[in-house]
């Protein structure tokens, strides 16, 4: 086809279009909204992990001056439905999840009552006047005990096990029979707190005249939220408008349908006044979803050359007290990605999801895949340790090399070249020199570790058949009369820079300047349809939908140009804002002329409708599978146990790159969150079910001086799954980072006989290992 133009913007390092408003304070986040006559909502939360609610006396709060409304679970029971869980897990137990607890509270932070007052201070003061009488019950805290029996988080279920998911591939018994090497290990992915710097917030306004509810929310999924709120509140879907204004980070924690979103919508409807709720940081810690919290008991069979024979994995996922939107789905992604980058001849998995009296776990950056990659990449290093084969060689000997590659879990990896990424990594890091340096330092008694981890991630979520709520993405492209282009995309970014990257795609396709393109998102009345931004899908699925719409517009433009040039559409080429006859650039019309003709519509070719616009839905035929290899060098202070990441080198392959600056930024941030999990962060509930890491004083979100600089390089293996060839990059760093860092930690301690260390590798843990006090693999490491 003669329509290809040389990309000028795609692949270029373009400064972000969204930044001017963000660096000047001119952007509007949800809490910045100041709706006239608004009431302010505050929520009374349970101080107990598990307790029966004997009585609630809100009379004093209701009588307080400035208080507009106080509601309890019973008050809203008939007007707000139960919170949803989206899944395709057979036999999943789904206990009711009310927006405010009824009868029993099930985690510290569970909502008990809501107050609306004239100002936020009065609302908070009023909370203190609500008297709740509780009968404390024995909390369910330890996930293994919870799996084994009572007490039960949901008494009526008679079990804490919400689902079991057995999986088997290949001849697992044969893999272990006569295996020369068998390794057993428990691997813990400790609970994490996502910590978007912007706390969640919701504002709502109800127009009685039209029966219309408008909701502003810190959400990654405005369209899915629209549908769910319509169902929860019993309002027709066309009468619900969800707006995600500027959103201050999500990392999966805003990929949900939260109680407050329904509650604030309902209260605005009931009061006939706008209502706003903004979470405090304490509420964020207690009542915004957590991530990870998975136990894996492994048995690995391998040959003496380091090739894998098979793996048995018992996975125990701590679900928390209720299902949030995707709670039970997350560990199924772990299961899917257990083979990592490797040919695994046999695999047996027993996965159980277990309720405990804690906040729900759900999607946190990587969502099940960091857990899987941590397991398989630790396995590779343990096999290397056991066989004496270099960890690089063990990886090479087990890599999948033919694509599409079928995995032990039934996936078909789209494209890849794992050796090439590893080659580039070793070259960039100068692996040989590092090994020599390490040998030297060890002679001097210094503690230095080198860690490598490969990864494959499952991205571009995804084919609708494989997802619980649709995996497509939608785009409406409108070329306005003046030649301005409006893109209405269903992916609703919150830091990923799609206003810039989508403009780059449009600029190349239509030959218009970046400034002539507006990327609209996050308003369900303006953007007709969409799914949202998560699972590294914005480019691979949302960008692909845009590509389809662009192709429609280009086709139509060529028809109109051909008519004006008295030629066949097949002979018209699109080039830098002009359309001309192939081989005759002087016979041309400008894109603007075509746009004008499309709207004047007084001389269009037969069968061509007026206007120049297209709406397309893109349904991916498969997931995408980005990959790469990371290396890190860690020094551990022999006296204090303090680890320092001296170098972090990452080679990533996310297919075609639209904007390298933005891709690099995603890797930096992703690895940063892996540094956080590996060395610093661990959410801890004590035996009473109290979240003892419930503040920034107790939960170690890393600061700038805790973090390394990053050295990045890239290979490029496009995916055939979408027209852009882009795979997605948002979660890669988090998925690669944990095993990379922890392999370095273990490597540093390996002369002492240490084979595994639980995350986070705190100075105390490492100091104990160095002092021979225990192996560092503290069983309480979760």
């Amino acid at each position: 086809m003669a329509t290809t133009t040389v990309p000028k913007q795609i692949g270029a390092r373009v400064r972000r279009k969204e930044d001017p408003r963000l660096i000047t304070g001119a952007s509007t986040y949800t809490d910045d909204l100041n709706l006239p006559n608004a009431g302010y909502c505050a929520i009374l939360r349970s101080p107990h992990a598990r307790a029966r609610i004997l009585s609630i006396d809100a009379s004093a709060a209701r009588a307080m001056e400035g208080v507009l409304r106080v509601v309890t679970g019973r008050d809203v029971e008939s007007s707000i439905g139960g919170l949803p869980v989206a899944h395709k897990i057979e036999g999943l137990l789904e206990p009711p999840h009310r927006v405010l607890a009824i009868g029993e509270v099930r985690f510290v932070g569970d909502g008990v009552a809501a107050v609306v007052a004239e100002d936020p201070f009065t609302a908070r003061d009023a909370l203190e006047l609500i008297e709740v009488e509780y009968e404390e019950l024995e909390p369910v805290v330890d996930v293994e005990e919870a799996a084994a029996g009572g007490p039960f988080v949901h008494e009526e279920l008679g079990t804490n096990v919400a689902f079991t998911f057995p999986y088997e591939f290949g001849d697992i018994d044969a893999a272990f029979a006569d295996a020369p090497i068998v390794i057993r290990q428990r691997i813990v992915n400790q609970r994490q707190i996502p910590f978007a710097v912007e706390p969640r917030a919701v504002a709502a306004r109800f127009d009685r005249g039209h029966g219309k509810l408008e909701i502003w929310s810190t959400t990654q999924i405005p369209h899915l939220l629209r549908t769910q709120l319509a169902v929860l509140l019993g309002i027709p879907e066309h009468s619900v408008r969800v707006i995600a204004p500027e959103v201050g980070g999500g990392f999966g924690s805003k990929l949900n349908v939260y109680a407050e979103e329904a509650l604030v919508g309902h209260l605005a409807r009931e009061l006939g006044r706008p209502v706003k709720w903004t979470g405090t940081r304490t509420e964020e810690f207690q009542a915004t979803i957590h991530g990870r919290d998975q136990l894996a008991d492994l048995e690995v069979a391998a040959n003496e050359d380091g090739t894998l024979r098979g793996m048995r994995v018992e996975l125990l996922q701590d679900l928390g007290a209720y299902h949030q939107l995707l709670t039970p789905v997350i560990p199924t992604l772990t299961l899917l990605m257990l083979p990592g980058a490797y040919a695994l001849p046999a695999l047996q998995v027993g996965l159980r999801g277990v309720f405990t009296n804690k906040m729900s776990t759900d999607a946190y950056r990587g969502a099940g895949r960091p857990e899987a990659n941590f397991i398989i990449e630790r396995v590779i290093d343990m096999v290397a340790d056991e066989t004496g084969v270099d960890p690089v060689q063990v990886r090479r000997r087990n890599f999948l090399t033919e694509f599409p590659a079928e995995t032990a879990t039934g996936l078909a990896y789209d494209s890849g070249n794992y050796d090439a990424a590893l080659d580039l990594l070793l070259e960039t890091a100068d692996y040989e020199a590092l090994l020599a340096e390490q040998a030297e330092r060890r002679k001097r008694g210094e503690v230095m570790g080198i860690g490598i981890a490969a990864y494959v991630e499952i991205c571009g979520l995804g084919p609708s058949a494989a997802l619980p709520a649709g995996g497509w993405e939608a785009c409406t492209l409108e070329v306005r009369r003046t030649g301005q282009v409006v893109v209405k995309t269903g992916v609703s970014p919150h830091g990923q820079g799609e206003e810039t990257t989508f403009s780059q795609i449009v600029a190349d396709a239509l030959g218009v300047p970046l400034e002539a393109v507006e990327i609209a998102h996050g308003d369900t009345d303006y953007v007709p349809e969409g799914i949202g931004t998560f699972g590294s899908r914005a480019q691979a699925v949302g960008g692909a939908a845009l590509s389809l719409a662009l192709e429609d517009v280009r086709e139509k433009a060529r028809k109109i140009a051909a008519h004006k040039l008295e030629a066949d559409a097949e002979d018209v080429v699109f080039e830098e804002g002009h359309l001309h006859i192939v081989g005759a650039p002087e016979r041309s019309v400008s894109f603007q002329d075509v746009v004008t003709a499309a709207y004047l519509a007084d001389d269009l070719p037969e069968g061509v409708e007026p206007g120049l616009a297209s709406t397309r839905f893109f349904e991916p035929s498969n997931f995408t599978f980005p990959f790469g290899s990371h290396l890190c060098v860690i020094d551990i202070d022999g006296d204090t146990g303090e680890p320092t990441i001296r170098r972090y080198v990452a080679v990533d392959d996310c297919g075609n790159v639209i904007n390298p600056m933005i891709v690099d930024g995603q890797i930096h941030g992703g690895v940063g969150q892996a540094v956080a999990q590996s060395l610093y962060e661990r959410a801890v509930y004590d035996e009473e079910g109290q979240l003892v890491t419930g503040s920034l004083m107790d939960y170690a979100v890393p600061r700038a001086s805790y973090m390394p600089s990053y050295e990045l390089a890239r290979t490029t293996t496009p995916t055939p799954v979408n027209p852009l060839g882009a795979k997605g990059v948002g979660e890669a760093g988090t998925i690669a980072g944990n095993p990379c860092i922890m392999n370095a930690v273990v490597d540093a301690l390996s002369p002492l006989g240490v084979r595994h260390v639980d995350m986070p590798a705190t100075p105390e843990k490492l100091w104990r290992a160095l002092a021979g006090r225990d192996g560092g693999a503290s069983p309480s490491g979760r």
Partner: protein
Amino acid sequence: MTTSVSITVNGRTRHSEIDPRLLLVHYLRDRLGLTGTHVGCETSLCGACTVLLDGKAVKSCALLAVQADGAEITTIEGLADGASYHPLQEAFWEEHGLQCGFCTPGMILAARQLLEDHPDPTEAEIREGLDGNLCRCTGYHNIVRAVRRAADAMSRA
């Protein structure tokens, strides 16, 4: 009970009657509509609310508005002081020192203090100087580069 304060914000002096328990950050956001200053933790640990008080970076969620009586406050909205952008704003843009942007105003104002203390900072000085401000998006890598770039630009100016 209210109390009178006189606070100069971004060059303009305002006389206000305020509740004595009103925090400076709420005064800026709710009374003056300067919502570029964000609230991330209400406990002075995340730094999203950083503003300049008489030229020094402070966390406006940990100060009462009455404590700013008679003081000069600069928020992100006033940093460029009539120009399009302050060199720090330019540098954060150029180096991709922000993603979601929520920590950015506080980070930029903390960086301004840092460059006043260390006009030619090392990487370690930059990282330590920003330790009062949390960012979850960037891994700090490009923030450090942005501050270094701004230092170069400001030393040339």
